[in-house]
């Protein structure tokens, strides 16, 4: 009994809402309770992974700093390739992060089967 593995899905762009920052906090926070946490960036969520973000004009820190929390907590980062392609984003334009894996739709199907809980905020 109990939830042991969760997948947090990020499908909204950064900065326009608190969704990604709070989702990262949630994904890392639950690991303290011995829950394995994995994240997936898809749809507009992939914009959060682009390098050269300059968010200081918004009074916000770049999202990359929050992503480091995921890595520090051993959270696997998955990125849906189709979302990158449809937005004209090359893998070369993404932040260079450890634990980051570009996955296909087929691999996404396999990934989804591995979790007790899948959700986005």
């Amino acid at each position, binding site marked *: *009994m*109990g*939830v*042991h593995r*969760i997948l947090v899905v990020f499908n*909204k762009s950064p900065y326009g*809402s*608190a*969704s990604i920052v*709070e989702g990262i*906090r*949630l994904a*890392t*926070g*639950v*690991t*303290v*309770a*011995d*829950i394995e946490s994995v994240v997936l960036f898809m749809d507009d969520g992939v914009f959060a992974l682009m390098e050269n973000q300059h968010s200081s004009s918004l009074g916000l820190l770049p999202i990359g700093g929050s992503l480091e929390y995921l890595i520090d907590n051993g959270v696997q980062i998955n990125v849906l390739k189709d979302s990158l392609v449809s937005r004209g984003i090359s893998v070369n334009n993404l932040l260079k992060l450890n634990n980051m894996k570009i996955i296909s739709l087929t691999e996404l199907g396999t990934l989804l089967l591995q979790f007790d*809980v899948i*959700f*986005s*905020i």
Partner: protein
Amino acid sequence: MVKFAFLVCTVPYTFQNTDTLYDMIEAAYELGHSVAGVFFFVDGVINASRKIKVAKGVPNLPEKLQKMVDKGIRVAVCSTCSEYRGLEEADLAHGVDYASLMTFGDILSQADKLITFGL
């Protein structure tokens, strides 16, 4: 029988989610299920404010929250999200925990299913 956990990220009265939450919990208990806990996150922390004044003709959500707490259901808010929104521990309804995401993890680890009311 299933043990549910709930994550609520929206404010009361703007969205119907909080009403649905309480209805679902009531229905779950009627069917013999149970609840591991309710965690109010992001804007959802406003649900736990003791300062909500209920107008005539709208659902009394604070009363429903209190009934849930009195029933022994674990209810917690994210303290960081609360601070961002000017909600202090003293502002919370009776019996609601001013907690961290570790509490959410703890609730999750005791649940079979998570139901999320997201942003």
